[in-house]
């Protein structure tokens, strides 16, 4: 019997000569099948209409791609990516780890003071390449990227996910230990909260306070993992 998947494969040129001939025979003898093929073709026309071709033009992304020095962070976070973090900054859901004399700790405070991370997190930061999740603390920890500041400090941004909740954090290597500079809630159930497009995440704010930071490529990162994050 001529099923929908076979009709689609026929339309998309995915059949070998033998099957194609078989389908053509079916279509010529089965009006229902032929009608079904026409409806599938009409569906394709509808799809093309729904999502039209995008023409090139003066796309601001072109300049961003071509002008930005290789591997340099931070970059402008999109609205949805910073939503939870910006919310955290506004509502104290995110915590800058720093001096608490001032009512609102600043990103600058966080660049000077840090808090030791747990042994489990430290182990992940010591050994895991970026993008490779590790199962710890009843959840998952994944390093997003590794950085080197102009001053030579080595830092790693990572996300801890437990169930539906996620927290982003930035830790830097200080005196042979990982110290967390900032963490911010990355997921929040309340999506009704509006956050302006211009908001900046606490993580990005702290990174920018660290000065020009360069994201390490995979080779550099692996070399540091192998060297137990000792600076060369």
């Amino acid at each position: 019997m001529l099923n929908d998947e076979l009709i689609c494969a026929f339309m998309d040129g995915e059949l070998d000569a033998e099957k194609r001939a078989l389908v053509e025979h079916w279509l010529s003898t089965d009006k229902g099948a032929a009608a079904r093929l026409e409806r599938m073709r009409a569906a394709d026309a509808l799809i093309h209409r729904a999502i039209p071709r995008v023409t090139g033009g003066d796309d601001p992304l072109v300049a961003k791609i071509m002008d930005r020095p290789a591997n340099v962070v931070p970059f402008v976070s999109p609205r949805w990516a910073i939503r939870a973090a910006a919310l955290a900054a506004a509502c104290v859901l995110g915590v800058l780890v720093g001096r608490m004399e001032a009512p609102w700790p600043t990103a600058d405070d966080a660049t000077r003071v840090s808090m030791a991370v747990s042994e489990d997190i430290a182990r992940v930061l010591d050994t895991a390449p970026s993008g490779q999740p590790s199962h710890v603390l009843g959840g998952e920890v994944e390093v997003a990227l590794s950085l080197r500041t102009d001053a030579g400090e080595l830092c790693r941004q990572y996300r801890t996910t437990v169930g539906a909740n996620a927290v982003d954090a930035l830790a830097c290597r200080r005196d042979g230990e990982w110290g967390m500079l900032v963490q911010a809630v990355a997921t929040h159930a309340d999506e009704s909260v509006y956050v302006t497009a211009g908001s900046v995440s606490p993580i990005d704010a702290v990174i920018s306070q660290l000065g020009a930071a360069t994201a390490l490529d995979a080779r550099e990162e692996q070399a540091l993992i192998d060297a137990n994050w000792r600076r060369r």
Partner: protein
Amino acid sequence: MTKDNLAFRQELVSLLPRLKRFAMALAGGRDAADDLLQSAVERALRKWDYFEEGKRLDSWMFKIMQNLWFDIRRAASAERWVSDDGVDIPGEDGRELVETREELRLAREAFAALPEEQRAVVALVVLEGFSYAAAADALEIPIGTVMSRLARARGAMAARARGTTVMPVRKEK
């Protein structure tokens, strides 16, 4: 900037219109699509060293975009695909314009009603002309899944176009 990195960036720029279309297919609204594309580009620039020479950059980017989109969707707890009506339609005849807008609205509503996994497959095969094998590779799913999602999506679009619900004809066991 190394020579290889420059070549990578140049190819990335050349792909932007296609990437934007894929972002529209996944995200629907223009703002959400722009954000998705920007994040994908940023990730690609950070991770370009992972891109294997000789592989298809478009596939690699589509994979990044789909993964990003799923991350966003998980974080946003099922925010609905929002259709963007702000599409420019050429033409001067008033009635024709109204009909065209209505057709466009129906088309976008029908597409928006598809599950996002189906939209991704449709975007690659129907809009991008990917082979089933290439789509399966880009989306990291079996070819059989590509076929079934495609058939279901086309069936649903066809049914929406006719205002009826059609049960798909499945493979015989």
